[in-house]
């Protein structure tokens, strides 16, 4: 027994020492504190006839903020019925809406704010995607959609599949299938592609998933927020943002901040497209 305890204590001590050495070594090369994130308020008016909305200065990049011209018919219908459009934000844990009193501005709360600044009344619900789409997450998404019955799904898709090193073609097949199901049930969709991560910019497994999100969105005529390219632009313009500083990756934070603006833009454009496609009264 004593021998066992001694072996266990030795093993635990070795692990603790290794962890300590690792943390100390890493802490020594931490870069300096970055500047605080600032945000210019989105425009307060919802100009239906206008084109792209005004983006905050830090989110203006060379890449287009979103791709596609798909009409968001269900969202428009909700607005015509004078009720808030029900939106489900689905994705990784940064998509989780924190408690209302939380100091952390999460992606859904920022998106909600940006949409309301555009004059849209929305009901925002956030759900975490657990696992890869090519695994069981697509089925769980369908079950969640059946329970929540949203007008619009804002889906940050691909990250978990890229992390699990799922084959890009398998991922695309399941994504295609799920988008078909959502369309059959009149749920509008805006896809948000995975983050740009400097370390993975040449990783074919990761970029393969990003490319498949774009390809499937284009094929299915779905609005896609171009977060990956936008973040790549931001990374080129601000190389220091890719490094961890003050417990935060600024590029990642800005990716979510800007993705909220781009998504709001895409939704407004989707409503415009629905008005154009269907004619009649504007919301």
């Amino acid at each position, binding site marked *: 027994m004593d021998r066992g305890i001694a072996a266990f204590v030795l093993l635990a001590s070795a692990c603790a020492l290794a962890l300590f050495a690792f943390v100390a070594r890493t802490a020594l090369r931490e870069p300096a504190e970055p500047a605080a994130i600032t945000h210019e308020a989105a425009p307060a008016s919802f100009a239906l006839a206008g084109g792209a909305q005004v983006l905050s200065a830090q989110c203006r990049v060379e890449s287009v903020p979103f791709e596609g011209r798909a009409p968001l018919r269900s969202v428009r219908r909700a607005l015509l019925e004078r009720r808030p459009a029900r939106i489900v934000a689905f994705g990784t844990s940064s998509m989780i809406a924190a408690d209302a009193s939380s100091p952390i501005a999460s992606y859904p709360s920022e998106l909600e704010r940006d949409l309301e600044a555009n004059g849209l009344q929305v009901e925002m619900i956030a759900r975490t995607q657990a696992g890869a789409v090519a695994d069981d997450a697509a*089925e769980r998404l369908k079950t969640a959609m059946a329970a929540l019955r949203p007008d619009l799904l804002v889906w940050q898709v691909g990250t978990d599949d890229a992390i699990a090193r799922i084959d890009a073609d398998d991922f695309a097949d399941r994504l295609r299938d799920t988008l078909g199901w959502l369309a059959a049930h009149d749920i509008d969709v805006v896809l948000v592609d995975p983050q740009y991560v400097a370390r993975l910019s040449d990783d074919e497994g990761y970029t393969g998933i990003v490319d498949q999100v774009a390809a499937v969105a284009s094929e299915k005529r779905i609005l896609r927020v171009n977060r990956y390219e936008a973040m790549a632009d931001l990374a080129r313009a601000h190389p220091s943002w890719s490094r961890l500083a003050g417990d935060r990756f600024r590029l990642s934070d800005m990716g979510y901040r800007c993705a909220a603006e781009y998504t709001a833009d895409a939704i407004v454009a989707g409503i415009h497209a629905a008005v154009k496609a269907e004619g009649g009264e504007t919301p």
Partner: protein
Amino acid sequence: MRTPNAIDFWRGVALVMIFINHVPGMVYSQLTLRDYAISDAAELFVFLAGCSLAFVAAGKAGPKPAGQVVGRLLWRAFEIWRAQIVVISVAVAMLGAGALYFNDPLLLEWHGAKPAFSDTARASIGLVLLTYQIGYFNILPLYVVLLLLALVFVVIARRSLAAALAASFALYAATLTWQLQLPSWPAQGAWFFNPLSWQLLVVLGFAVITLQQTHSTMWQAAVRRLWPVSVVVVAIGAVVVWIEYRPDPMAVPDPRFFFLFDKQFLSPVRILNMAALAIAFYPLFPILARAMAPLVRYCSSLGRNSLVVFCVASLLALAGQIARYVGEPGFLFDTGIVIVGLVALRVTAWIAELQPSSS
């Protein structure tokens, strides 16, 4: 140290499958239950927990004193709660270390870990209250609540096993009908495993072993009669999985969780499939014990030390996920992860059995 028995053996098998399933994307997941059955290793693990509960509640001489049983279950719930706090803390530290070392922000967001880093005050409270869980580290919180619920059912079963089963079924039916859930916090949503429905599997496991102890002859006869039916049900389940059939959640009638294959609410088809698997594979253990004794000894050693082995398996699986993410995964890479994992789990069980109070 107990000699190998069926419950320990199958629990060890479930632990190995959980370890492999917790490293998503590995080719070896094709060897696990979920590729051949509607239910998976999680159901097997929880069902076997219910089976073990019967031995906690009663010995060979009959029911143990109520105070002793309640005390044992409360202490076990505390042990598992403690294990969850340790394991999730180590998991968060691993993700933080990975993010620092590889300069990779995605690692801070893995499996719902973001609040631990960006909303630490609330996440710390949620972690202790078990309302903050991260992906692949959500079975132990289920277990804690299951043990606390089991307290009630075991006490009822001392008067009437039928009443305990009826109460469990009633809670299950109410949960599926009204979609009762335990909330997550600080993140929105609900627990990945809903204890209010999963409790039925524990009570069924408890009832099966209790009946085996009290009505041995009838029990053996019932298993013999049900065996052919169970084999057919298992075969049908395998075909359903093979053709990738899933009911459309928009198409099924309300209350829809009765008709889906939902894991969170443990839809009835998953329980049915688990029960059929248990009966169909029941005669296998004595055969394996003779024909493949080393395998049986290996799995039984894991099953005997299930809590500590599960904790280590969860952390090894996370290490495997990180390794696959930063490395170049392939067949050999995945084989390495599985071999290292299986050896480490056996070493963990060996160390645990050196302790005087190993269980």
